């Protein structure tokens, strides 16, 4: 195999990104591999014959095979992996060539690649495998794309424009189907075209297949043009919701083409069927969505498999809907949209990331594969080109679309608040792309009943190519030319969220006053119901009570914090109280989240702590100035030890005081408090007896000049003041602050009194400015 030489240059130097030049040999090698595996069935059969022969000839002994080649049993997974690898490498390659990806949309390039691969296979083998098998397409390739779209569907704009979307989807598609089918039948009647054998019903069937706007193609093209949200949701929503119409029309016409006639009863049944298909699909999806939300409530201990529930429930919704011939696409959309708010409230952050990236990955690979297979199937399929039919189809598709959009908009604009302008209409009409769904539906037609199947398929492929290539490539420059409003890249700010909610409430109130039960009224009712019953049931723990605003704020702060950490500016948080925010962000994720009321409490010590730290910081500076005047030998009491015996303390104090009563303070630096000045002036070497504590007036003790650790003094003073939150006392620095002690004795009683005593003994020279209040008291007895 040519693989090894292609790999080594890539593997050698890891720092270099994979150059386009290296990709090409790689891709070529893969293509050869694919062609080779497609050609391998011949080898296998031969191998099987040999085995049978050996068995019948009584096991003649062979040498033990050191290296054997057995391809048959891994053929299928091997081929699938090769296709996926090819698709991914192609995708990688396109983005390495910037000029190309800006001019040509990815879908076009992928179809071209598909054509090349198909051509290659045909050259080698003359038989292209039917890759776009309808089963494969509908069961494996389509669901990831739809689920991705449904899970991340922006609910608000979707709901606001639901009426418009539904009218385009249902009425628009019906109009398209009947117009195209009818006019085509007329074309078929023309002698020159020699299409006489195509009856009315097959034409209508063809019309219904070709009329539906394809979500895959729309997604692929619209994603690259970044158009404004309204237009995006209109076209995309239409492409999703028209599935129900397509399903019903398809089955209706398919059934009755065999029979040959359609009666009025059939038409009535068809309408009822449409309602059943649409509503049934949505209900099935919603039911599975609720199940998924309920399951996610209990996954707090097994976080690893959380994403699996999302994927499996959604896929089951799709399959269940398909069992009953309901609209699988609508089921998927409903499931994703319903489960999302509850699941996201329950699952961990990592699971959320996992779900997001898995969905994007699968849908991306699916989309790539679909387009490549379209190319391959074009080459491989049997075609029957009929000029009249094909050109008529292409022209009619365009014409029908334009007439449909313009006509419907005229009606819709009467009911819309924000009208659709001509520019909008043009984009909506131009964005009606057809894609692989139409092809697969055509492929599903039974060749026995539909001899014209090949003509149909050819026409379908032509239309698809036309829409994807011509419309897909030109829509971007047209959008620029017409200056259509683009998508706003700005993230939703908390201001917008608050004001939007505010306006919602305001408008609901005004509607109530006018007695007008409109949009806001029902939305408000739904929200209330949701908050009261549904959230309690489906969301685990206390998150169920969290208002939407607060949840949004947490998410925003978390994102911001992650961004800051990633950018390396860890310390600078713009939010006013960062510590409270981070605590609350972590808490909701814990399985046993405390009550919202309790969430407030952990903050208090932190807030206090901040204050205390601030005070400490301020005063530490001042302490340094006065350090020299402190007494080293006095007791340093621990303010935290509440268990101190007061009496014991008092005794100790008295002992020390008596021992050093003969000493006078020697202030080394000029002290500014008037009391101290007095002390200096009237320095009288008299023993100073502390006044009895009972009268609540702590006296200033004269003591040995003994330095203490300023911290302890700080701490005592500070904790007192911390508790008091009296900012004016900070300036006094530490110590004694007899006035505070005086105020506090009524509050705290004995304990503090003891501490005051200590402080007093300690702080001889410097009672601080607070002592001003003591001026009325005699300094010296």
């Amino acid at each position: 195999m040519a693989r090894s030489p292609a790999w080594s240059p890539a593997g050698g130097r890891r720092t270099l990104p994979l150059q386009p030049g290296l990709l090409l040999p790689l891709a070529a090698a893969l293509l050869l591999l694919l062609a080779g595996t497609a050609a391998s069935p011949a080898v296998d059969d031969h191998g099987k014959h040999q085995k049978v022969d050996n068995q019948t000839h009584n096991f003649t002994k062979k040498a033990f095979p050191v290296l054997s080649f057995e391809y048959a049993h891994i053929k299928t997974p091997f081929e699938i992996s090769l296709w996926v690898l090819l698709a991914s490498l192609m995708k990688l390659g396109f983005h390495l060539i910037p000029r190309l990806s800006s001019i040509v949309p990815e879908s076009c390039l992928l179809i071209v690649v598909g054509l090349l691969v198909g051509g290659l296979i045909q050259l080698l083998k003359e038989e292209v495998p039917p890759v776009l098998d309808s089963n494969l397409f509908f069961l494996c390739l389509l669901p990831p794309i739809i689920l991705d779209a449904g899970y991340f569907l922006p609910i608000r704009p979707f709901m606001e424009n639901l009426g418009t979307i539904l009218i385009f989807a249902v009425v628009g598609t019906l109009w398209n189907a009947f117009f195209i089918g009818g006019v085509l039948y007329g074309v078929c009647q023309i002698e020159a075209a020699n299409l006489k054998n195509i009856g009315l019903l097959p034409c209508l069937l063809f019309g219904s297949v070709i009329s539906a706007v394809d979500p895959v193609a729309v997604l692929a093209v619209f994603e690259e043009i970044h158009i404004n949200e309204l237009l995006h949701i209109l076209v995309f929503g239409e492409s999703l919701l028209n599935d129900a119409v397509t399903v019903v029309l398809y089955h209706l016409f398919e059934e009755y083409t065999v029979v040959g006639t359609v009666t009025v009863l059939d038409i009535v049944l068809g309408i009822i069927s449409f309602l059943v298909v649409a509503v049934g699909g949505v209900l099935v999806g919603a039911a599975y969505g609720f199940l998924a939300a309920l399951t996610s409530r209990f996954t707090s201990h097994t976080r690893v498999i959380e994403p699996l529930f999302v994927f499996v429930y959604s896929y089951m919704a799709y399959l269940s809907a398909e069992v009953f011939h309901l609209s699988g696409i609508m089921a998927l959309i409903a499931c994703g949209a319903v489960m999302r708010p509850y699941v996201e409230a329950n699952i961990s952050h990592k699971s959320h990331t996992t779900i997001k990236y898995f969905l994007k990955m699968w849908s991306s690979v699916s989309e790539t594969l679909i387009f490549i297979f379209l190319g391959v199937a074009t080459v491989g399929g049997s075609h029957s080109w009929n000029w009249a039919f094909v050109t008529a189809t292409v022209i009619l598709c365009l014409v029908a679309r334009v007439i449909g959009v313009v006509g419907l908009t005229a009606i819709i604009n009467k009911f819309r608040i924000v009208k659709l302008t001509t520019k909008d209409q043009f984009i909506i009409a131009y964005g009606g792309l057809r894609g692989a769904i139409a092809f697969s539906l055509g492929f599903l037609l039974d060749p026995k009943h539909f001899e014209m199947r090949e003509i149909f398929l050819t026409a379908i492929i032509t239309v698809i190519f036309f829409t994807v290539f011509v419309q897909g490539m030109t829509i971007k420059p047209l959008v620029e030319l017409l200056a259509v409003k683009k998508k706003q890249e700005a993230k939703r700010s908390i201001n917008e969220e608050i004001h939007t909610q505010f306006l919602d409430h305001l408008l609901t109130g005004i509607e109530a006053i006018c007695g007008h039960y409109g949009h806001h009224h029902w939305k408000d009712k739904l929200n209330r119901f949701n908050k009261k019953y549904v959230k309690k049931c489906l969301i685990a723990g206390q998150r169920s009570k969290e208002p939407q605003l607060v949840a949004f704020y947490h998410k925003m702060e978390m994102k911001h914090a992650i961004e800051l950490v990633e950018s390396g500016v860890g310390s600078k948080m713009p939010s006013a109280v960062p510590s409270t925010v981070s605590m609350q962000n972590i808490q909701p994720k814990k399985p046993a989240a405390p009550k919202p009321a309790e969430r407030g409490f952990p903050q208090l010590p932190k807030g206090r702590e901040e204050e205390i730290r601030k005070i400490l910081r301020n005063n530490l500076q001042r302490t340094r100035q006065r350090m020299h005047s402190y007494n080293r030998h006095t007791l340093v009491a621990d303010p935290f030890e509440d268990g101190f015996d007061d009496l014991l303390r008092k005794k100790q104090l008295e002992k020390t005081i008596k021992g050093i009563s003969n000493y006078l303070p020697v202030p080394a630096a000029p002290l500014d408090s008037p009391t101290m000045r007095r002390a200096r002036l009237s320095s009288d070497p008299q023993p100073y007896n502390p006044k009895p504590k009972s009268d609540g007036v702590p006296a200033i003790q004269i003591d040995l000049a003994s330095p203490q650790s300023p911290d302890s003094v700080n701490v005592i003073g500070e904790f007192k003041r911390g508790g008091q939150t009296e900012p004016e006392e900070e300036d006094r620095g530490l110590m004694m602050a007899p006035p505070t002690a005086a105020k506090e004795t009524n509050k705290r009683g004995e304990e503090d009194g003891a501490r005051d005593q200590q402080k007093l003994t300690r702080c001889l020279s410097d009672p601080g400015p607070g002592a001003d209040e003591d001026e009325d008291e005699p300094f010296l007895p």
Partner: protein
Amino acid sequence: MGSRASTLLREEEIEEIKKETGFSHSQITRLYSRFTSLDKGENGALSREDFQRIPELAINPLGDRIINAFFPEGEDQVNFRGFMRTLAHFRPIDDNEKKSAASSEPPLNSRANKLQFAFRMYDLDRDDKISRDELLQVLRMMVGVNISDDQLGSIADRTIQEADTSGDGCISFNEFMKVLENVDVEHKMSIRFLH
């Protein structure tokens, strides 16, 4: 209108209201019948109790403020003209109106006037600034009782920080308009009054 309890709306009045607010004839008559049905005292004016009797307004978090917005400064009664004048803010903007509005005084339902109405509902003391306290009050009303003050405070601080470009710690009307420039106010602040 005066003190005369008129149950029928005269043509001249309808014309005047039409000119002032831009509502159509049928809309005005429909809203008049709603006005009279709310007016239990039948004195041609609505009082605060009349509004409070509306059940949906009672459960609306902003109910009181909305009611207050109808009553001009210091008054306790609002007549039909005042009622319509306030409701005119919520009329959808017509395309042809947009063109003519540039010439004369902007109509009551222009984007700027809609935003002015919303702004006044935040700014109770009418100082043309939404202070932190006013914002906190509104947040408290919308969020309910479960959230602590500190948490709400940090949300309010963040909100002001995002919007406040002048650095005065309050949100002025211009800053308010700037923040909402991406929001489709014409759509969000309009009610579809059926013709």
